[in-house]
């Protein structure tokens, strides 16, 4: 049994736009899954269909073995959703929002109040529990939506760009919270535009583009596909132009910064051995761009190039 099983999911909107072209997706129980794709790729449509907010045109969805069409009550009990846009009553208080949401799931008020205290506390919102939600900061509103999604303690948490527009400090605290939630057994599916976020958090990844899943694999396997990486090295001293590093393709920037391309025939150790032999000291090292970002761009562009060739 999977946490989420999607088979041949298709969605055509009333205006004729084909948003999903028969996608298949299996999310293992306890997994941390990332759904990536450019804007308009179909990520949000897929998520909103799973959460019963958009009607599917065709296909089958099962949540922990419960068919969403035939056993919606059981399936929905297992899903918690954090949407992209703020969608709570901004004139209500965080405490009321959580307790009411629990009520919609058939949870008694006395239990709902205890859970609201727990989740508002864990997400550092307890002291704001009686404030009008409209007055909360952007990061607080995002955390409130996470607390609301967890109030019925679902087995599957789906987050649609949960950290969009929040500062790095809050984003990292949210990452930690999501990691802890996943470690406690909750399966998580996340869409994000921050590829660093997906790489840090997720163990599995699916890339969706123009309504089709173009990659669906373990994060570690996907990153292995990266045949070359560009590293930026800051050197302690200026490098002479005649330094021979010809085993690697490199560019010298401003005398003491080196951009080196490490391909699949070499490792980063080879580069350091060479630098040691040349007595070149390195003060810091970083990737020129996020590894997943490079792969993502390559996959999406190669698909688009293929489509153009075919047409």
């Amino acid at each position: 049994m999977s946490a989420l099983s999607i088979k041949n999911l298709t969605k055509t909107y009333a205006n004729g736009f084909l948003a999903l072209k028969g996608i298949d997706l299996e999310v293992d129980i306890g997994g941390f899954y990332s759904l990536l794709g450019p804007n308009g790729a179909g990520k949000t449509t897929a998520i909103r269909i799973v959460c019963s907010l958009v009607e599917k045109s065709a296909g089958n969805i099962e949540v922990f073995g419960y068919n969403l069409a035939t056993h919606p009550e059981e399936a929905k009990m297992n899903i918690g959703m954090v949407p992209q846009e703020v969608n709570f009553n901004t004139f209500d208080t965080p405490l009321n929002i959580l307790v009411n949401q629990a009520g919609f799931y058939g949870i008694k008020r006395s239990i709902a109040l205890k859970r609201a205290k727990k989740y508002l506390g864990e997400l550092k919102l307890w002291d704001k529990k009686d404030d009008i939600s409209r007055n909360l900061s952007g990061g607080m509103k995002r955390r409130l939506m996470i607390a609301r999604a967890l109030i019925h303690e679902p087995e599957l948490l789906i987050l649609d760009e949960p950290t969009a527009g929040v500062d790095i400090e809050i984003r990292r605290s949210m990452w930690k919270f999501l990691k802890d939630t996943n470690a406690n057994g909750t399966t998580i599916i996340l869409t994000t535009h921050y590829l660093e976020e997906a790489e840090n958090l997720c163990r599995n990844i699916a890339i969706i583009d123009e309504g089709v899943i173009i990659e669906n694999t373990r994060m570690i396997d996907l990153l292995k596909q990266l045949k070359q990486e560009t590293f930026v090295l800051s050197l302690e001293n200026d490098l002479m132009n005649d330094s021979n590093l010809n085993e690697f393709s490199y560019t010298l920037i401003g005398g003491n910064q080196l951009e080196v391309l490490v391909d699949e025939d070499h490792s980063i150790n080879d580069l350091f051995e060479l630098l040691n032999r040349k007595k070149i000291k390195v003060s810091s090292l970083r990737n020129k761009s996020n590894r997943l970002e490079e792969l993502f761009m390559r996959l999406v562009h190669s698909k688009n190039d293929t489509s153009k060739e075919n047409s």
Partner: protein
Amino acid sequence: MNLSLNLIAFYTIVRKEVIRVLRIWIQTIVPPAITMTLYFVIFGNLIGSRVGTMGGYSYMQFIAPGIIMMSVITNSYGNVVSSFFGAKFGGHIEEMLVSPMSNSAIILGHIAGGVLRGLLVGAMVTIIALSFTKLELKYPLITFSMVFLSSVVFSLAGFINALYAQKFDDIAIIPTFVITPLTYLGGVFYSINLLPDFWQYASKFNPILYMVNAFRYGILGTSDIDVRYAYLVVCAFIVILFTLSFLLLKRGVGIRD
């Protein structure tokens, strides 16, 4: 269907609605009190004193049940249409749609909210009416059942309006162009026996006429129509409108892409 889950969900919506009505009492309770007081002062007192009796009662007594019913109808409708459309507009309708609660619980919860507001405002207008005139309660069961059922009808109508509404203007169209004219032509201020035959006949296609007259019958014991027909009309509307609401909600009209 899990009954206990749906009962808690139903109670949650009703509680939320009641808190909303009381929180914004200056928008929900005060305006009908002022408007209806003006009706009693202008139509009942100033003009009514020159009209004389109608159906064997003073004009003030005659119009009082109609004005109470008018306030119940407009407030039941207004509560559901504004609350449900507000939830659609603000996006928090999704809180209910993602949950396992049944469509019936969603409809009944909002209808209960509309009925409670309608009855609350109706009770307040009754108190105001009693400060202007004396009202008996000839048939309490007819009075209370008719005001309750009429409130249900207009709450359901408000729910359907909210489902279809795409912008705030859309929730004002039906009250302005349908409910208000039908209410004024529904025998609130006159007996249809005063109308020419054709208009008497035409008036019988107006469902509000049945509600107002049956309610008036319950209070005063006088009516232009047979009260049994009133129950038939009101119950038929409830069945039709509830079925329509349920089917529209199930199909996701106005709320799901």
